[in-house]
């Protein structure tokens, strides 16, 4: 049986009512794991307070941070600072310089393309992404900053180019409140509408995000030394 996830929930962090409603609806629509976007200043106490209502409902929560660097240097500084604190690190690429570094750096988990990028540059940027999942946020369609037909056209282009380059796609809601949440199979249906195959669309809300989370949790655990090297101690030690 598939376990479903929404890797990007982005509500106001100091509004407990909104967070509680989101947790309630996340349970209703059958999410097993959610990724919560924190900002650079979030304290450990605040993070624990936000995670609590999800945990009581049996939903696993992943700490995530979204970086929007303007230059290569800024991205590298942020990666150094936040990699060990958050389980998911996503980079929103505003130019090709950043997208090249983000796609090559192993510390980056997810890449997304800024909404102001032209069609030509979208193709150019996605062509340079190697083995990094590309994220599509449903909130870009539900609350569009440009006319909706342009948003749909851009996302269609992103998915088409990602498919051509065999780049995995992740679909998440980017919900700011419970009204923007959508069930995982509904998000997959939008993925199909934008050009994904039905299996790939379902993987984009289940297998692909789960594999990233599992890999990163392993890396952040105290047992992890390097790729392929882990500490295993017997019960006697």
């Amino acid at each position, binding site marked *: 049986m598939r376990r479903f996830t929404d890797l990007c929930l982005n509500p106001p962090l100091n509004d407990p009512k909104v967070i509680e409603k989101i947790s309630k*609806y996340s349970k*209703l*629509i059958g999410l097993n794991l959610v990724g919560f976007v924190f900002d650079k200043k979030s304290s450990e106490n605040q993070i624990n307070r936000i995670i609590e209502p999800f945990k009581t409902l049996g939903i696993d929560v992943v700490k995530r941070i979204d970086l929007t660097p303007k230059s290569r240097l800024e991205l590298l500084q942020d990666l150094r600072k936040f990699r060990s604190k958050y389980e998911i690190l996503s980079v929103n690429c505003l130019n090709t310089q950043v997208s090249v570094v983000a796609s090559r750096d192993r510390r980056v988990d997810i890449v997304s393309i800024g909404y102001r990028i032209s069609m030509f540059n979208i193709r150019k940027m996605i062509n340079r992404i190697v083995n990094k999942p590309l994220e599509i946020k*449903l909130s870009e*369609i*539900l*609350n569009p900053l440009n006319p909706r037909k342009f948003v749909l056209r851009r996302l269609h282009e992103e998915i088409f180019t990602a498919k051509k380059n065999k780049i995995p796609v992740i679909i998440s809601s980017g919900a700011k409140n*419970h*009204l*923007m*949440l*959508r*069930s995982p*199979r*509904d*998000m*997959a*249906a*939008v993925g*199909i*509408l934008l050009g994904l195959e*039905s299996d790939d669309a379902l993987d984009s809300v289940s297998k692909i995000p789960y594999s990233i989370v599992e890999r990163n949790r392993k890396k952040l655990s105290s047992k992890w030394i390097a790729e392929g090297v882990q500490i295993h101690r017997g019960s006697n030690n």
Partner: protein
Amino acid sequence: MKIIADNYLNKEKLNSVIHFAIKRVHGERGLMEIDPHIISYDTRSNEAVIRCRNSSVNKFRASLTLITNFDDHVISIFVLKTSGTIKSLKKESKSQ
């Protein structure tokens, strides 16, 4: 299907919402292909059972997913369960 719409919907309005949502994404042809029918709508729980063509489930889901407002009212629709038979859906909604 669970609907959030600040107590504004009845069965007729829900029908209009569904038709509007499908037409906006898939057009008249999509509406013809999907062929939606409201089987039941409980205004208290805001839950509805809707029939559509089996081959167009994903199209129907996508159109419902992309709706955010209708007649200046905020609307959000979640598909809670799909099934091949209406009987099993009704059983499910009774058990909840």
